[in-house]
């Protein structure tokens, strides 16, 4: 609760009318941003702890270690350090949280460091697509998440003879 309070206080400060309308001095805007950043980091740590405990309690092995979750603050950019283990041959499970009160079936986009990956849900492999922009890769697939719930998808690097991307999966054309 104390960790979440950090974010709550930052959000409280950000309700000031100057914060809402953007009529604050630049140094004040920077202060708002720093408070929100500190609150964000504390909240992520809390989520990490809670989800890690939930995953451990649902594991068949009672001796399973608590998975250490990480977050990607650069999801709308081209690099996500959280998916770097893919380049070392590890699988990267990604857990999606749906904060709305209805089931969502939505596309998701994740920056990845390699071009050849597969995505699996609990039902097995699902369709996915990799877009290549300027030597960075964005993985796209559809995620199904229950209301206020979680879903897990596992991103796996594709090795060996499978290492060639199917030609029909993605193509690029420079128009002008």
């Amino acid at each position, binding site marked *: 609760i104390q960790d979440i309070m950090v974010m709550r206080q930052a959000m409280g400060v950000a309700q000031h009318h100057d914060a809402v309308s953007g009529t604050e001095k630049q140094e004040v805007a920077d202060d708002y941003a720093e408070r929100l950043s500190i609150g964000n980091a504390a909240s992520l740590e809390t989520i990490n702890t809670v989800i890690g405990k939930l995953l451990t309690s649902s594991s068949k092995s009672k001796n399973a270690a608590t998975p*250490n979750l990480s977050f990607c603050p650069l999801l709308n950019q081209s690099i996500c350090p959280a998916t770097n283990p893919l380049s070392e041959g590890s699988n*990267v499970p990604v857990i999606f*949280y*749906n904060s709305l009160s209805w089931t969502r079936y939505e*596309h998701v986009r994740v920056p990845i460091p390699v071009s050849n990956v597969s995505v699996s849900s609990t039902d097995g492999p699902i369709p996915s697509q990799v877009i290549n922009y300027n030597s960075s890769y964005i993985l796209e*697939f*559809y995620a199904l998440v229950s209301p206020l719930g979680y879903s897990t998808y596992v991103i796996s690097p594709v090795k060996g003879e499978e290492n060639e991307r199917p030609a029909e999966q993605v193509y690029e054309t420079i128009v*002008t």
Partner: protein
Amino acid sequence: KENTANPIVFENKYISAQFNPNDGSLISITNVTSGATLNIQQEYVWYQSSDGNYDSTQCSGAYIFRPNEDYAFKYNNITPIVTVAQGPISSSIRIFWSDIMVQTFRLYTESEHLEVEEIIGPIDISDNLGKEVVSRYTTDLSTDNTWYSDSNGMEMQKRITNYRPSWNYTVVQPTSGNYVPVNAITYIQDTSKNLQFTVLTDRSRSSASLRSGQLDVMMHRRTLMDDGRGVGQPMNESTQIITTSKLIFHDISEVAQSHYRPTALGLAHPLYPMFTSTQQSSSQWN
């Protein structure tokens, strides 16, 4: 497909979008369900921030949007690099003018909307001109000087050009006097054709409809002067903005309204991802 006369077409079972193959610009959106087509042009324009004139010393700033004149300049005067990618999940067209102006349209296979991602800024002020950059959609809808924007993501407010519902409005600033707040949703309607063009935003901004069928959305502002309303600084935003909006073309009906409302909430509350790594196979992990 260089110099081809055929437009680039993205299509799923809900909508079809056509793009100019030479510059990647949006040409039209078709609602596949109803068969209606919206002819549309999107462009980026900028207003020069006022630093006062003989009418008034009022400068454009954080509180006051006051353009120097009503004329809007074209923001991108160079030929962009256009990249198209199509696959089983999405089709996308990326229009790259420079590192400070990139636009990407995406159509996902299961989406009823066209997504547009815009990377804009930092705005160049090396010419000593403050700039207020606007994304302008010009359609063939007849909108009777009326548009709508939301109040805090909830009730939609009817807006009429050069009009206020509760007092006799004297037009002093024909452009900025018609810019109103948007928190999540803004749209224009053609009641004679029963058609609506909706823009969903991922952050608060402002919108206007200065001409019939037109919808302006303010993107980014960088002014050189303080507007004298208490901030004491020019609004010299040196940041880059990466924003995602959704464009929906549909009929005017309660059914259609019930579709874009959840979409707007989904845009404001995206699925939140957390990552870990494992040596377990996907079946073992699951």
